[in-house]
């Protein structure tokens, strides 16, 4: 032991205080386990500090301004001005409140909090280096560990986030001013959410995507709704082009250079270039091999359905354990990890992990698509309800999109749902519950839905799948 190195012991060591780690730590402490949480940066992880929460704050603020300014059809004439500095201040307040809340919750549940960067010394010891010179380090002996170090934005060759004009989502969410021209590499959910935000902030937004549509993992009719709306907002799309580099332009700005598969080159002027092509796991500083844990080619830690790594007493949860890289998946995994360590019969056996994209309009899905259900061998029944047939949707002025329900034609079990449209992120909860409970179409159709609400569209889609819809023609 070196001088200044203090050894302590804990039953459960949680590395990383994001939505996977802090939830795991709290649940472990609730189960009576002596729990220590190490966070190197800010409690709440990427979700609270650099992801879900700041992006939703900006999406809501810009959406509100945009909506107020485009409601002439309702007889509302307004030209909202956005004081962006104030918007950012408000966003930061929201983040501070939530991260402070996480810290308080951990403490109130008896979690020992340590600030620093943890790495494995061996399978039962970790060293935590405290930030800054002369702050020293400490060794922690643990019985169980939960690795929840999350992910960071992926860099692509030629685009270093160290360059001031090259943004990752982190910088895009922390900007203190709006660039006149924003080029975005990648039309995935992060790229599309930020394209929407900056388009509504009146930036000229160009999105470059190697594939042929926005939101590649989603079905065509879902993506189409989002793309058309983004185009209406003024977003320019360049599909089939990959970012190859950038150069300085004469006007003091930059040029984003792209190339098609056929070698056709183009360039787009921009003041900032946002690279949003995915996230990669953060494992490099962990010295995982000291603990006997290997990562796969993508750098992810492989885990079983009880979140255990190859070294059974060490668990991994959240983005670092692979797809789906979603905060709520991380939290679920964190709870399972803590309960498995406490000896409870927990496991990751969810039938559906919902996902939401906060574009305009929103997209939310859960469970199987029609194609996936067929692939899995189901005799599939599908029902759909367009929002332009929903009374409530009409009264909000947002009628783009639809609810689709995928079910097993025989037994009627709800297998999946795809929603694109207003409040899709909220509406998906009902579909998810139905899937998880093994509810049938009849169960959902037999549940009375409030009128007039958007949620009725879920019921209508279910009835459509039964061939008994009232407000749509049954297909």
């Amino acid at each position, binding site marked *: 032991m070196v001088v200044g190195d203090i050894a302590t012991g804990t039953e459960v060591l949680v590395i990383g205080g994001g939505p996977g780690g802090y939830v795991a730590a709290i649940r472990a402490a609730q189960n009576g386990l002596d729990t220590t949480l190490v966070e190197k940066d800010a409690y709440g992880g990427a979700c609270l500090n650099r992801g879900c929460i700041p992006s939703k704050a900006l999406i809501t603020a810009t959406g509100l301004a945009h909506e107020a300014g485009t409601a002439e059809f309702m007889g509302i004439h307004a030209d909202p001005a956005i004081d962006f500095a104030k918007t950012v201040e408000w966003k930061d307040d929201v983040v501070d409140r939530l991260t402070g809340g996480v810290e308080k919750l951990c403490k109130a549940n008896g979690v020992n909090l340590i600030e620093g960067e943890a790495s494995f010394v061996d399978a039962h010891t970790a060293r935590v280096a405290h930030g800054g010179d002369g702050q020293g380090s400490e060794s922690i002996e643990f019985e169980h560990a939960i690795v929840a170090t999350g992910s960071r934005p992926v860099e692509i060759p030629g685009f270093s986030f160290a360059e001031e004009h090259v943004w990752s989502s982190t910088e895009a969410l922390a900007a203190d001013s709006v660039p006149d021209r924003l080029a975005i590499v990648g039309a995935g959910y992060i790229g599309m959410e930020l394209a929407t935000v900056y388009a509504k902030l009146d930036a000229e937004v160009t999105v470059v995507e190697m594939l042929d549509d926005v939101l590649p993992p989603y079905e065509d009719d879902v993506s189409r709704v989002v793309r058309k709306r983004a185009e209406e907002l003024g977003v320019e799309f360049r599909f089939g082009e990959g970012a190859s580099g950038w150069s300085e332009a004469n006007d003091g700005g930059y040029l984003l250079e792209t190339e098609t598969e056929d070698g056709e080159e183009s360039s787009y002027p921009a003041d900032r270039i946002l690279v949003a092509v995915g996230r990669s796991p953060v494992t490099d500083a962990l010295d995982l091999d000291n603990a006997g844990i290997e990562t796969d080619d993508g750098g992810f830690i492989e885990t079983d359905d009880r979140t255990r790594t190859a070294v059974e007493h060490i668990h991994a949860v959240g983005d670092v354990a692979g797809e789906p890289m979603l905060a709520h998946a991380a939290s679920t995994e964190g709870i399972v990890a803590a309960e498995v360590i406490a000896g409870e019969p927990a*496991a990751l056996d969810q039938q559906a992990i919902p996902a939401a994209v906060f574009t305009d309009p929103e997209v939310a899905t859960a469970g199987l698509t029609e194609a996936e259900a067929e692939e899995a061998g*189901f005799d599939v029944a599908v029902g759909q309800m367009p929002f332009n047939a929903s009374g409530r949707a009409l009264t909000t002025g947002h009628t783009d999109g639809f609810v689709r329900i995928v079910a097993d034609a025989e*037994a*009627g079990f709800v297998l999946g749902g795809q929603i694109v449209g207003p409040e899709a992120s909220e509406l998906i909860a009902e579909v998810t519950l139905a899937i998880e*409970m*093994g509810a*049938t179409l009849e*169960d959902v159709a037999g549940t009375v839905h409030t009128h007039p609400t958007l949620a009725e569209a879920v019921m209508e889609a279910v009835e459509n799948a039964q061939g008994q819809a009232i407000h749509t023609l049954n297909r």
Partner: protein
Amino acid sequence: MTIKEFTLPDVGEGVAEGELVTWLVAPGDRVTEDQPVAEVETDKALVEVPSRYDGVVEELFVEEGEVVPVGDVIISFRVDEDGDGDEGREEDEGREGDDGEEGDPDPEAESPPKEPDAPAGRAFAPPSARRLARELGVDVAAVRGSGPGGRVTEADVREHADAADADTGTEDEAGAGTADGPKPVDIDASDRRSAVSKRDGTTAGAAEGSGTPTSEPAGRETTLATPATRKLAAELGVDLDDVPTDATREGEAVVDAAAVRAYAEADADAEAGAEPTTATSPAAASSEPDAGEDRPTEETVPYRGVRRTIGERMERSVYTAPHVTHHDTAEVDALVTAREELKAKAEAAGVKLTYMPFVLKAVVAGLKAHPYLNSELREDEEEIALKKEYNVGIAVATDAGLMVPVIDDVDEKGLFELAAELTDLASRAREREITPAEMKGGTFTITNFGAIGGEYATPIINYPETAILGLGAIEERPVVRDRSDVDGGVLDEEDETTVVPAPTLPLSLSIDHRVVDGAVAAAFANTVMEHLENPLLLLNE
């Protein structure tokens, strides 16, 4: 014997109908479970449909060559009721046993139609049922679901697990609390027995004798359950501690609503089966267990009559009046002497003189000085009635239980008169010849547990009275006295006091604290003690 109908099962791959190609059995044939009864051709395959029952083929409803939708009745069997339940369990055992065993050539494992045909072995079960399955070590995909479309419920999982347990467990365990087996027997739901008769060894024995699976009470000390489950248990008259469960939480057994329901049903079935052979009269319930029954774990006696009346009154008193018990000890040398002196006189008068008449008189002295102990709180009228009569009840232990005959107007009676009356009442109480009128009208009660032994107790007030005095045994006990009062017994020349043996009477006075405060209770006890220690004062009463 019952008739069981059997529908064309889902033969897999999302097939909605099939052509019944060949019947492999004819009416009158005896079939065993899983024996193929028909060949059915779908657009995908020719499959054999196995019987789900042991029994005799009753009727075929479909012609060969006919196309039958899944779910239509194709055949019926005459099934022995008892056998059916057992067979069903064995089938599940077989399946469970097959799991994970390499190279088992058991034909059951190959029978094509698995009940809910979910592609890729997906089980439609809510998270709660899946978690329970993990807890019980059950593969949820192997559980036959009873819900709509074959959805697996927690009860299904439990049933599956119980069936698997039965495989490895003893006969007794097999019978314990499974919801499996007994098919709904036509019994009136209102025919459920109380928890008392449920615990009755003879009933259970008879049920087993009749071959109906029964649910043996688990009889735990504590059981965890949600409020909703507790409510359900109360509604069904089920003692949660009796519901079998394998689930635990922090070492304590956990019971859920499904288990409670399953237990209540199994229990009702068992009792329906037991009905013809077991009388349900209290006499039968309290009778000795059958000779044939091996080692009953308990004997039950009816909670009725005097016992229940006592119980109810105790309950009412304790839950109505906040009790405080004051303890003190009277040094009764003088009382012992006085009684000795009077005893001969009493005998001459034909009376047996105990200490009780003295105590009665001392109590009256106390009550006169502290009238609140001789009172009744009338909450509704918002008043306390201070009684001007001194009618003192004497608690008497009888074979049938505690009785409290009352001696009226103690203040107006002499010692010998009281002695005579006491003797009379006590003997008649024990003979159960006492009239209800003679046990009414008390204003204060004395309980003489010391007659049997002991020093102090916490007597329960004979509600709606306000106080009760308990008497310990009068015995010689060490007391501290001034040396000047004592001959000998010197421990130390310097000491002014010394410890000597002396007859003492331990007193335990319980009061209703709503009416009387501790200081008054102590003052009352002091007055009583003063009169017991100086019996000459009783002359004044």
